[in-house]
C-alpha cells in the first residue's frame, strides 16, 4: 500500500508542478512588448481584452510566453478528428495502420498544432500594431516566435502529464483555465446582480448547479450495455445463452460526442454576427432578428445541439466498423446474426441512445439561460454547460485513473 501511495504522490506532484510552471509562463511577459502601452490601449478598447482572453482563457492584460496555452493543440485535435471521420484513407490509416498509423496521425496533429500556433500568434502580433507605438515587423516576428515556441512547449508538457503524471494533460490545462476564472465570475455575479440576488434566486442558482452536475455525471457515466458472446463460448455451452448472463459487452455511452455539439452550435450561431460585421451585406439584419427573438435563438440552439450530437456520435462510433471488428474477432451479439443484421441492430440502439443523450445535453446547455431569464440574474457566461462538462469529466477521469493504479499495484504487491 505504501508503494501505491508513493506512486500516486509522485504522479500528483508531477502534474501539479507542471501546471504551476505553465501558469507562471502565462504571466511571464514576452520581452519587447511595452505592457504599459498595451494596458492603456486595452482600457480604451475592451474588444482587445476579449481577444487576449479568447486565446489565453484568462482575464489578464499580459501577453505571456504561454498565452496561446493548449488551444492550438485542441483546435488541431478537433480538426484531425473531423478529417479522420470524413476522409476514408486517413480513417483507414488510423484503424488498420496499427502503431505506425497512430504515430502518423500524432505527427499530423502536431504539425497542425504548429500551424494553428503560427496563425494565432500572427493574428495577435498584427493586432498589436494598433496598440504599440514601437511596433515593427521585427517585433512582430519576435512575438510570433515567442508565442509559437510557448505553445509547442505547453503541448510537450501536457504530454508529460498524460504519460507520467495524473490525468490527461490537455484536459487538465483547460480545467485549470476554467477554475482560475471562477473567483472573477463569482465577483461579477454578485456585483452585477446585487439588486436581484434574493434568498429565492440564491437557492435557485444552488439548485441549478446541483441539477447540472448530477445531470452531467449521469450523462458521462451512463451507458447502454450491448452484451456479446464469442464463438468459443457458444461452442462450449450448448444451452441457450441469456442476454443478461454474458460477461462481455459493448458500453454505448449516452454522450459519445462530449462537448463538441455545444462548441459547433455556438460557432455556427455566431456566424451571422461575423457576416454582418464584415459590412458586405449591410441590409442583412439576421443577427438582430435572432438576438432579439430570444425564443427563436434558444429553440435553434436546442435543435442544433440535437443535430450535431447525432452527427458527431456516428463519427466517434461507427456501427458498420464495430460490426466488422466483431466479425473479425468471431464475437457476436446474442440473438443477432453477424454482418448486416448486427450493423442494423447497432444503428437502432445507437439512434435511441444518442437521441436520449443529446436531449439531456441540450436541456443542460439551455438550462442556465432559462434560469437567468426566470430569476433575472445575469453573468453566467464563463460557467456554462461546456465548462461544467469539462470540470466533471476531468475529475471523473482522474478518479478512474487512481482506481486503476491502485488495482494494478495490489496485484504487483501480492506477488512480490
Amino acid at each position, binding site marked *: 500500500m505504501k508503494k501505491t501511495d508513493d506512486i500516486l504522490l509522485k504522479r500528483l506532484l508531477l502534474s501539479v508542478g507542471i501546471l504551476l510552471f505553465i501558469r507562471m*509562463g502565462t504571466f*511571464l*511577459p*514576452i*520581452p*519587447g512588448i511595452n505592457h504599459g502601452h498595451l494596458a492603456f490601449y486595452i482600457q480604451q478598447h475592451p474588444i482587445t481584452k476579449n481577444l487576449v482572453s479568447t486565446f489565453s482563457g484568462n482575464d489578464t492584460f499580459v501577453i505571456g*510566453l504561454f498565452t496561446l496555452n493548449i488551444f492550438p*493543440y485542441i483546435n488541431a*485535435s478537433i480538426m484531425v478528428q473531423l478529417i479522420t471521420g470524413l476522409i476514408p484513407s486517413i480513417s483507414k490509416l488510423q484503424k488498420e495502420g496499427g502503431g505506425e498509423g*497512430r*504515430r502518423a*496521425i*500524432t*505527427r499530423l*496533429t*502536431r504539425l497542425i498544432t*504548429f500551424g494553428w500556433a503560427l496563425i494565432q500568434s500572427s493574428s495577435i502580433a498584427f493586432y498589436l500594431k494598433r496598440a504599440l507605438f514601437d511596433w515593427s515587423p521585427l517585433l512582430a516576428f*519576435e512575438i510570433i*516566435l*515567442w508565442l*509559437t*515556441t510557448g505553445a*509547442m*512547449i505547453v*503541448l*510537450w508538457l501536457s*504530454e*508529460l502529464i*498524460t*504519460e*507520467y503524471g495524473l490525468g*490527461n494533460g*490537455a*484536459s487538465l490545462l483547460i480545467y485549470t483555465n476554467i477554475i482560475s476564472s471562477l473567483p472573477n465570475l463569482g465577483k461579477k455575479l454578485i456585483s452585477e446582480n446585487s439588486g436581484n440576488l434574493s434568498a429565492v434566486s440564491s437557492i435557485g442558482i444552488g439548485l441549478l448547479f446541483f441539477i447540472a452536475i448530477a445531470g452531467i455525471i449521469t450523462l458521462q457515466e451512463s451507458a447502454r450495455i450491448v452484451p456479446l458472446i464469442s464463438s468459443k463460448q457458444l461452442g462450449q455451452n450448448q444451452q441457450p445463452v441469456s442476454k443478461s448472463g454474458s460477461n462481455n459487452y459493448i458500453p454505448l455511452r449516452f454522450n459519445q460526442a462530449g462537448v463538441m455539439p455545444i462548441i459547433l452550435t455556438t460557432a455556427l450561431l455566431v456566424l451571422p454576427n461575423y457576416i454582418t460585421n464584415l459590412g458586405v451585406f449591410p441590409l442583412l439584419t439576421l443577427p438582430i432578428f435572432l438576438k432579439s427573438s430570444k425564443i427563436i435563438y434558444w429553440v435553434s440552439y436546442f435543435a442544433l445541439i440535437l443535430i450535431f450530437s447525432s452527427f458527431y456520435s456516428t463519427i466517434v462510433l461507427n456501427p458498420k466498423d464495430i460490426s466488422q471488428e466483431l466479425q473479425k474477432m468471431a464475437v457476436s451479439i446474442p440473438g443477432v446474426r453477424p454482418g448486416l443484421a448486427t450493423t442494423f441492430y447497432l444503428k437502432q440502439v445507437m439512434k435511441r441512445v444518442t437521441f436520449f443523450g443529446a436531449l439531456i445535453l441540450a436541456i443542460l446547455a439551455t438550462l442556465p439561460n432559462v434560469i437567468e431569464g426566470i430569476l433575472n440574474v445575469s453573468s453566467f457566461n464563463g460557467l456554462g454547460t461546456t465548462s461544467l462538462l469539462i470540470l466533471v469529466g476531468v475529475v471523473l*477521469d482522474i478518479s*478512474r*485513473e487512481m482506481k*486503476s*493504479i491502485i488495482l*494494478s499495484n495490489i496485484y*504487483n504487491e501480492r506477488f512480490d
Partner: protein
Amino acid sequence: MLKIIWVILSIVLIGLIFLRTPQNQGLASFSTKSNLLGSPSSAEQFLNNLTIILMIGYFSFAVFLNFSI
C-alpha cells in the same frame, strides 16, 4: 547576439518537440500510460532531459531579456 542565440534555441526546441512521439494520443485512456509497469527507453529519457534543459534555458532567457529591456 543574445537574440540570435534565443532564435536558434527556439527553433531547436520546436524541432526536439516534433522529434518526440508520445506513447499516448491526446485523449487516450490511462490503461496505455507508460511507466505504470515498466520504464521509458534510454533514448526517450535522453530526449526528455535535453528538452527540459533547453526549456529551462528558454525560460531563463525570457526572464533575463525582460529585466534587461
